[in-house]
């Protein structure tokens, strides 16, 4: 088990390095010269320009800049912001640091139980009208982007009925719509999967045996079948969190929530690439970490995984 953990953790290194390289390269793509932009009306001030260039490290060769970038990240230092002169990126990011995880975590907490319940419900009513309709709804839920769903929900719930605020952040009622909208794709995704798994499990011999020895249908479903659908669901937590992280970019922009997602998009338009790329790095590291934990948990639950020869590629 120890070697398995070590191997999986080491397997992350090239991926993390790739993320660091990509964001460094992306930072070089800023249209125009960031120092010129910073100087704006004081563009004649050569002394100030030289000082800023030195402060931002832009007077050094590219490979030195990359070295500073990498060692900085290891210390939790993402460099300086281009929009707010001489301000460390980390200070720009700090106020929103907890908002996005709060949104994503809330959505995840709703999504998994609701999705499992919904999927189990329709699996037990296979090929009924309810099944067809719910499956149609689940296809829509997993694939239609949440800003399109948002238009309808905000219109009906906030504008027509006046139940919830249209946008903003700070009160519980302001969090309801964003969390709900973030949760819809994972609810639908989990429900689709648990429906499929449940249909598969219900065909297993041990289910027939349990029924044959006289256990009630309810007991068989909840005691025997449901448990076995939960294991494969665990692996999807990584995919779900990836979707939720991307989702925060859209939902925070849409509802004007001061989280990292909105800040990342705003910073693209403000040409403050260091901030955008720091957020991308944080999200990618977090995503990689979650996937590692999920893999390890899966190895704990199912010994076949950790004893097998690494990851069997593909579908």
């Amino acid at each position, binding site marked *: 088990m120890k070697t398995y953990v070590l191997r999986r953790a080491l397997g992350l290194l090239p991926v993390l390095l790739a993320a660091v390289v990509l964001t460094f390269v992306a930072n070089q793509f800023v249209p125009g010269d960031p120092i010129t932009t910073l100087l704006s009306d004081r563009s004649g001030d050569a002394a100030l320009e030289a000082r800023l260039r030195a402060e931002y490290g832009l007077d050094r060769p590219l490979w030195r800049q990359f070295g500073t970038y990498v060692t900085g990240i290891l210390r939790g230092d993402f460099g300086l912001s281009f929009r707010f002169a001489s301000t460390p990126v980390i200070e720009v990011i700090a106020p929103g640091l907890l908002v996005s995880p709060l949104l994503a975590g809330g959505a995840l907490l709703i999504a998994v139980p609701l999705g499992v319940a919904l999927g189990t419900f329709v699996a037990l009513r296979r090929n009924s009208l309810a099944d067809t309709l719910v499956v149609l709804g689940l296809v829509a839920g997993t694939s239609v982007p949440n800003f399109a769903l948002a238009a309808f929900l905000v219109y009906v719930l906030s504008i027509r009925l006046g139940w919830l605020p249209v946008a903003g952040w700070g009160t519980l009622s302001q969090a309801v719509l964003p969390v709900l909208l973030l949760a819809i794709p994972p609810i639908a995704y989990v429900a689709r999967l648990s429906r499929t798994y449940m249909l598969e499990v219900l065909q297993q011999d041990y289910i027939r045996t349990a029924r044959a020895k006289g256990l009630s249908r309810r007991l068989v479903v909840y005691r025997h079948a449901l448990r076995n659908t939960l294991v494969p669901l665990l692996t999807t937590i990584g995919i779900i969190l990836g979707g939720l992280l991307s989702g925060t970019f859209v939902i925070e922009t849409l509802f004007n929530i001061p989280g990292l997602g909105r800040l990342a998009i705003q910073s693209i338009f403000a040409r403050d690439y260091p901030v955008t790329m720091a957020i991308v790095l944080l999200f990618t590291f977090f995503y990689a970490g979650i996937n590692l934990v999920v893999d390890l948990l899966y190895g704990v639950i199912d010994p076949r995984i950790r004893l097998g020869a690494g990851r069997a590629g593909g*579908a």
Partner: protein
Amino acid sequence: MTEPGPAIPAIGTLEERAGTDIWRRFRRSRNARLGGGLVVLVTVAALAAPWLAPYGYEDTDLLAVWAEPSGAHLLGGDALGRDVLSRLITGARVSLLVAVSVLALTLPVGTLAGMAAGYFGGWVDSLLMRSADIVFAFPELILAIVVAAMLGPGTGTVIVALAIVWWPGIARLTRSLTLALRTELFVDAAIVSGTRPLTILVRHVLPNVVPPLLVRASIGVGFIVMAEATLSFLGIGVQEPLPTWGGMIRDGLVALRTDPHLALSASAALGVTIVGFNLLGDGLRDLLDPRVRDR
């Protein structure tokens, strides 16, 4: 990517099965029929947009600024007095153009890479699959956002960004299908009779990976349309004056209280299109997957 790929062992080519049989089965599936119908509808709108749209998508009319839906403007006007219906129809053209371009870039590359990796193994396999892993390391939309930020907004950027995000999925699927095919008797027979690897890949492997790739492509169009709309919604995708559903939803949300028609109609068009391609893909998968078919 969002869906675990359809694992389809040992499949025959499309030609081997009676075409009429497939058609009959396709028509029996309610959801596949619905999906197919929606896809035809959107495709016709996209192809015939210049003739179908009652107005030009750039034509502004001061009297139609935020106009209510009426006889002259069936879905009303937007902030610049442009006809919403015309922009919706042209938006289908933009969305599908992006989708077709991404497919045209990724299908050949992904298929070739996947077949080479699966067939030859060794360093070819390692190289291709490690580069795919790097793409998979990022949440897909976040990677697209980074690429879009680097290249600057625009239609070309969206196509490149989504192609980068999407090709590894195709490569991985093709690879796993090729791995399964390698153990088939007919591939062994071809090797033994001295057929060159390239010929084996083209003549014996390719026809067998195409059907599942078709399924993936159909679901993929749904994903690409969604991702394009998201980038455009965030303002880093397709730019004005070209109409995109994502951009129209963003503009419409600002005026949702007073003029809901723009956001709601663009959201509906986007939703219907994406659901259509997904239903069609699911329907195709059920047709081609023997496990479902023979049940």
